[in-house]
């Protein structure tokens, strides 16, 4: 059953992504001020939403693990964090490229990019921690606590960087000109957000399977040593 869901979802995601790419590159016109390069926005914004919210969503599953000690919650939390790191990286890279084209610089300290960078560092700390612990129960327990700390901090980081940049303004990457986008653009952006969410879910499912197998291998290793 689970496999059917997985393959069904993969097919749907692939189709949706192809449809979106067609829309993005073939159908929609160039944007007024920024020319063709703005199309990166269709990936830049959704990956921001997914990348930044991931750590907050993982919090729920980390807490669930600590309460129930069921490894499935730990697998989901780890999967969501890892996948949101992928999207966060995508956000940073697309932001860098877009900034280069729009302003001529590879990096700009705008609030969202800066927050994303800090979240990326916190997320990579989480992934490194998981890598460094072999024993599954300890790994789940410690990464759950780290996830809670990182998640609470992510909100504080976001707020503090926003305040800082309010006091020290920087240009902001966006294509909203005076509060609106052409209707076709907005719709396509949300379609692409959906496609990326579906992709994210697929990746988390794959990751969960990997986590289960890794725990089984670890148990087999211990059995082997005990003999």
């Amino acid at each position, binding site marked *: 059953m689970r496999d059917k869901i997985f393959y069904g979802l993969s097919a749907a995601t692939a189709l949706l992504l192809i449809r979106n790419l067609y829309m993005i590159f073939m159908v929609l016109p160039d944007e007024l001020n920024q020319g063709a390069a703005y199309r990166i926005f269709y990936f830049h914004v959704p990956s921001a939403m997914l990348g930044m919210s991931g750590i907050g969503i993982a919090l729920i599953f980390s807490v669930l693990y600590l309460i129930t000690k069921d490894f499935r919650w730990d697998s989901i939390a780890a999967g969501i964090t890892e996948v949101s790191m992928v999207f966060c990286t995508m956000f940073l890279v697309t932001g860098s490229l877009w900034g280069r084209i729009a302003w001529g610089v590879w990096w700009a300290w705008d609030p969202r990019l800066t927050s994303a960078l*800090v979240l990326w560092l916190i997320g990579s*700390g989480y992934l490194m921690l998981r890598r460094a612990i072999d024993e599954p129960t300890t790994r789940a327990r*410690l990464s759950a606590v780290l996830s*809670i700390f990182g998640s*609470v901090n992510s909100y*504080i980081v976001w*707020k*503090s960087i926003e305040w800082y940049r309010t006091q020290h303004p920087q240009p902001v990457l966006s294509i909203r000109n005076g509060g609106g986008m052409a209707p076709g653009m907005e719709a396509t952006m949300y379609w692409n957000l959906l496609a990326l969410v579906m992709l994210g879910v697929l990746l988390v499912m794959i990751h969960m399977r990997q986590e289960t197998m890794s725990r089984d291998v670890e148990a087999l290793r211990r059995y082997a040593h005990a003999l």
Partner: protein
Amino acid sequence: MKEFARQVWAITGKDLRSEMRTKEAINASLAFAVVILLLFSFAFDQSSDEMKTMAGGLLWMVFAFAGTLVLNRSFVREVPNDCLDAILASPISGAALFLGKAIGNFVLLMIIEMACLPIFSVFYDVRLTAQPGWLAAVMLLATWALVVIGTMFSALTVNMRLRELMLPTLVYPMMIPALTAAIQLTTVLISGEPIGENMIWFRLLAAFDIIFTALAVTFVDTVLQG
């Protein structure tokens, strides 16, 4: 309650006594701080006005780097002779153990910071006495923020084999909001301006302290006990 206080005090006393006897961490930390201050003075031109805007940032970077030398050792000092197990087997609660160590670390960090301030003032020609009350408040709040994060993560990583590598990577990103606030406030205070709209940073520091102390006290048992 009284028992809690006694246990906290016993741990703080033990850590401070132990550190003062060897002075390993505090000497390394002070030496490191002075070296960074010196190196930065070569990197930047003190006479420029820009120096005034950067002074706050510089000071807190020195405190953060030198401070983590002390904070990293926090739970590591319990590892030899299996002392951590002996302590955890006693009736002490995780909260009391954490607070005892955090307070001890706080004292050590304040000593290092107090020693750094005159050096900083001299090297960079900065007047620190402009608004001493406010500056003291910033130092107390921000130092506690560093201590809470550093002590907690020292507990989290105490049994890990890659502890030395992991700690800086985990700890510095977590400290960013508190450091940002401290830097903002210190820069404003040193330049002699009134706090004004920067009060928001004070509130951030206070909120950070309260939230993370509460989280640490709640979860320290979870990370220490297998």
